């Protein structure tokens, strides 16, 4: 936090020199710049009201269909991988809230390949602000708010109807687990985006882990088999986003044999993921050479 006096300073503009001489004077300027970026985004997106409403509707639609798919599958079977509909919906709720929130806050990093290809990333780098927050604020997709609200609704409804035996620990877990999932998915978004520093035409490759991860975490991992499960669940860590926390909330033992405490420490995996993402981003930026366009 900044000293109280500096916040009211007259300059909210970033000093042109970039590296300001005194660190205390920089903070309000930087915060102000970020706030200005966010404000400009909000105003420009709200300017076309009909388009914005269509986008709000369209974005919630995708998440609604994910839930509809689960309901349709349970129309032809009584259990999926040994889990009932109510139990599976807890997993769906944890996954869809975490993914939607991460997609809202960090998801637009998936535009990085285009920025690298068109050379816009050069413009981002020469500005006196950190590159990552700039990229995220440059087009924060406010239309995705509808998805987060729906995801939260699914989470609350599923947790409420699953007959969970509430303890203090479970109350804490039901708050921490979705937030940890947010951090985890956010880290996945950033890490996969850094691929475009090395492989410019990587196209939709990142989708296989980001959207693929969302689909993977929407079902109990017992559904999957073979090395695919080993890779996605434990190699990439997706089992700790929704499956293990859901087991701990529901008080069920893991059919795959991992001990019960895994569900309680699962949120910690998000910190590891965040550390890896931070490292990948730093290394990626260092490696970045402009495409020269």
């Amino acid at each position: 936090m900044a000293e109280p006096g500096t916040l009211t300073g007259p300059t909210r503009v970033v000093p042109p020199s970039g590296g300001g001489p005194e660190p205390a004077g920089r903070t309000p300027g930087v915060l102000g710049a970020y706030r200005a970026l966010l404000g400009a985004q909000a105003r420009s997106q709200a300017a076309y009201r009909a388009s914005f409403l269509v986008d709000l509707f369209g974005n919630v639609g995708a998440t609604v269909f994910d839930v509809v798919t689960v309901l349709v599958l349970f129309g032809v079977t009584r259990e999926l991988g040994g889990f009932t509909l109510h139990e599976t919906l807890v997993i769906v709720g944890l996954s869809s809230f975490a993914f939607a929130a991460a997609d809202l806050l960090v998801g637009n990093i998936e535009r990085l390949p285009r920025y690298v290809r068109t050379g816009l990333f050069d413009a981002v780098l020469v500005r006196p602000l950190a590159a990552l927050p700039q990229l995220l604020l440059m087009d924060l997709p406010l239309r995705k708010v509808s998805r987060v609200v729906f995801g939260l609704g699914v989470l609350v409804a599923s947790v409420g109807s699953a007959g969970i035996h509430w303890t203090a620990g479970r109350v804490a877990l039901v708050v921490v687990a979705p937030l940890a999932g947010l951090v985890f998915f956010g880290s996945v978004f950033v890490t996969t985006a850094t691929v475009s520093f090395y492989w410019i035409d990587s196209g939709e490759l990142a989708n296989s882990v980001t959207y693929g991860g969302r689909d993977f975490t929407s079902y109990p991992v017992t559904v999957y088999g073979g090395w695919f499960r080993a890779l996605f669940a434990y190699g990439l860590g997706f089992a700790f986003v929704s499956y293990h926390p859901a087991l701990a909330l529901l008080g069920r033992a893991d059919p795959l044999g991992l001990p019960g405490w895994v569900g309680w420490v699962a949120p910690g995996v998000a910190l590891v993921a965040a550390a890896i993402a931070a490292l990948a981003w730093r290394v990626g930026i260092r490696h970045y050479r402009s495409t020269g366009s």
Partner: protein
Amino acid sequence: MGSVTATVAPPTNSNVTRSIRTFGAIARSGFRRYATYRQAAVAGVVTNTVFGFLRYYIFLAAAGAAGRVAGYDREQLATFVWVGQGLLAVIAIWGWTELADRIRTGEIAADLLRPVHPVTSYLATDVGRAGYAALSRLVPPVLIGLFLFDVYLPHRGATLPLFVLSVVLAVVICFGCRYLVNATAYWLQDVRGPLILWTLCSGVLAGLYFPLGFLPGWLEALLRYGTPFPSLLQIPLDVLVERQPAPVQLGLVGVQAGWAVVLLALCRLVQRRAELRLVVQGG
């Protein structure tokens, strides 16, 4: 393949031959144009493969211990998923906004000056694109399915030719739908709304997220005859895995043919109405 090009004088002067040659030339250039994006094709195959694994295991779980669900056994589900992941790129279900972009920028004026009808020339390009996608995007997931899983191979002799015909019709139907969605730009300028609706409906109603057989029978029938969506993926895949007896199989391809004719006629109608009101700015 043949070495004829569009510039060589046709041996006969019939109009039919000439238009087939033109169509072929445009289709070949479409093939070449999309064949330049090789890295993107590799990335696309990886993504299709990951989703293939996800969907295969999820559908298999729905089949449960009995191993049968909605008229599919395990092998049929495997074929359904892996061929489906490849067909996704062949019909190019998502992401085509070329026509809408050209309408918005006014570049469509150049298309209207050409001696070939825009619906025909865009269709020819799309057929060429689909041909390249069949090699680069359909073959890899099919091979993965063949090597890693027990897949269902068709028993009836007529199934394979019927499947090829069904895929060609699916390409035409998907093109028709995308053309209509894009053509709303003549009236709306911004096609984001229709495009979002299309993206949402096509995935779930074509049978990508789950085979439409998982739905109640009356709903599946309503979708099949009342909308073109099942003709995009569900019908070609059902034809391939022989879910229905041979006469029904043939009837399903007939339904597709009907949709292809209706949609192409609609495209031409919409195009004519649009040209009457189109004003291109600038010079």
